[in-house]
């Protein structure tokens, strides 16, 4: 069989890992016993095709790791302690992260009561936490070991967190969740947008514009402005502001207000964030033109 030696090495590695969990006096014997089965599995004439034999051999080798965890020995106790500590840490991390989600979204909901996204995440977080606490309580009530309760909680957190994470990415991609945007840009997306407070000076307006530019946002599942066009225009504005603009390249507030960018179906800059930045730039340029 092609690659037999390599497969055997992988199998022997897995068996070696399993043997390490066993007590010293049985380790060597178990390794020899299990390793001797590997070539026999790979050459088993009853199993066809060869790929199936290879898969069976690897499954056999991996299964020995599980078997050693069940073996009565000191190593089992050590492995159980390690797994328990790991599980407890994972539970703590999950609980803290879900708690953080609930707290930050509560703050967001207070700041922006019209936005539905924070309420959605608060509800999801509370359901996650209560469901997992219920699992732990159920296991403990049945008189099971705390390890089983912790394992149940981790599994529950895991089951919730993966779809939550995917959903959060989707909400951001379609532009519903804008929690990673600066406050000035995010304000533009609330269902009832409140006009940003006008900057008092040109420098303040330019600073607001630069802050927003630093958070340009790629709209992954929606049309957006072509990034090259926007970057080039912003570079021209910056050159004008730093007095490096070439004659004929100088940008005025009227130019900023009149500019039109090409669009792409996906992956372009979020149009509303760019427009927000341009409004600040236009404001800054207009104020600079008026000042002596």
């Amino acid at each position, binding site marked *: 069989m092609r690659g037999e030696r390599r497969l055997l090495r992988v199998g022997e590695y897995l068996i070696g890992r399993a043997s390490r969990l066993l007590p010293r006096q049985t380790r060597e014997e178990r390794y020899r016993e299990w390793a001797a*089965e590997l070539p026999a599995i790979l050459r088993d004439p009853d199993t066809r095709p060869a790929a199936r034999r290879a898969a069976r051999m690897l499954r056999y080798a991996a299964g020995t790791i599980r078997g050693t965890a069940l073996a009565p020995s000191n190593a089992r106790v050590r492995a159980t302690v390690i797994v328990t500590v790991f599980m407890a840490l994972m539970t703590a991390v999950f609980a803290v992260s879900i708690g953080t989600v609930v707290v930050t979204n509560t703050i967001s909901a207070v700041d922006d009561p019209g936005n539905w996204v924070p309420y959605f995440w608060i509800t999801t977080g509370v359901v996650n936490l209560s469901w997992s606490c219920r699992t732990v309580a159920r296991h403990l009530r049945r008189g099971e070991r705390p390890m089983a309760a912790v394992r149940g909680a981790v599994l529950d957190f895991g089951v919730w967190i993966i779809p939550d994470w995917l959903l959060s990415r989707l909400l951001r991609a379609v532009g519903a969740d804008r929690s990673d945007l600066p406050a000035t840009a995010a304000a533009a997306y609330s269902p009832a947008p409140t006009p940003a407070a006008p900057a008092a000076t040109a420098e303040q307006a330019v600073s607001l514009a630069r802050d927003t530019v630093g958070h340009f946002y790629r709209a992954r599942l929606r049309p957006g402005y072509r990034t090259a066009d926007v970057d080039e225009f912003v570079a021209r504005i910056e050159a004008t502001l730093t007095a490096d603009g070439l004659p004929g390249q100088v940008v005025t507030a009227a130019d900023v207000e009149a500019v039109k960018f090409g669009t792409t179906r996906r992956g372009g800059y979020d149009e509303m964030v760019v427009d927000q930045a341009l409004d600040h730039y236009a404001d800054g340029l207009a104020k600079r033109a008026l000042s002596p």
Partner: protein
Amino acid sequence: MTVTLERVLRAFLDDPAVPRYGYDLMKAAGLKSGTLYPMLGRLEDDRLVTSAWETPQRDGERPRKYYRLTGEGVRVARLELAHVSAGRSRAPGRQGRPVPGSPG
């Protein structure tokens, strides 16, 4: 007795005189290595199973470990399996739904 233990004992009792190696038992009992070996270890501790290393047939070939039931193991296995079978035959069958149109 668990179903997995029952399967292992039945595999041994197919021919109690023939020593069986691990992979052979796995195939016969339809168990995974992670389930079979701890069980063999427990049976060995209870002196129901004995193991021995084979003499390699060819140079460079690793010797395999063979397991077989001890005399006591054969007796206990037969007794336990008979007990299980008797228990199953005594268990009341599930009350099926009457065939539509049948009396009662």
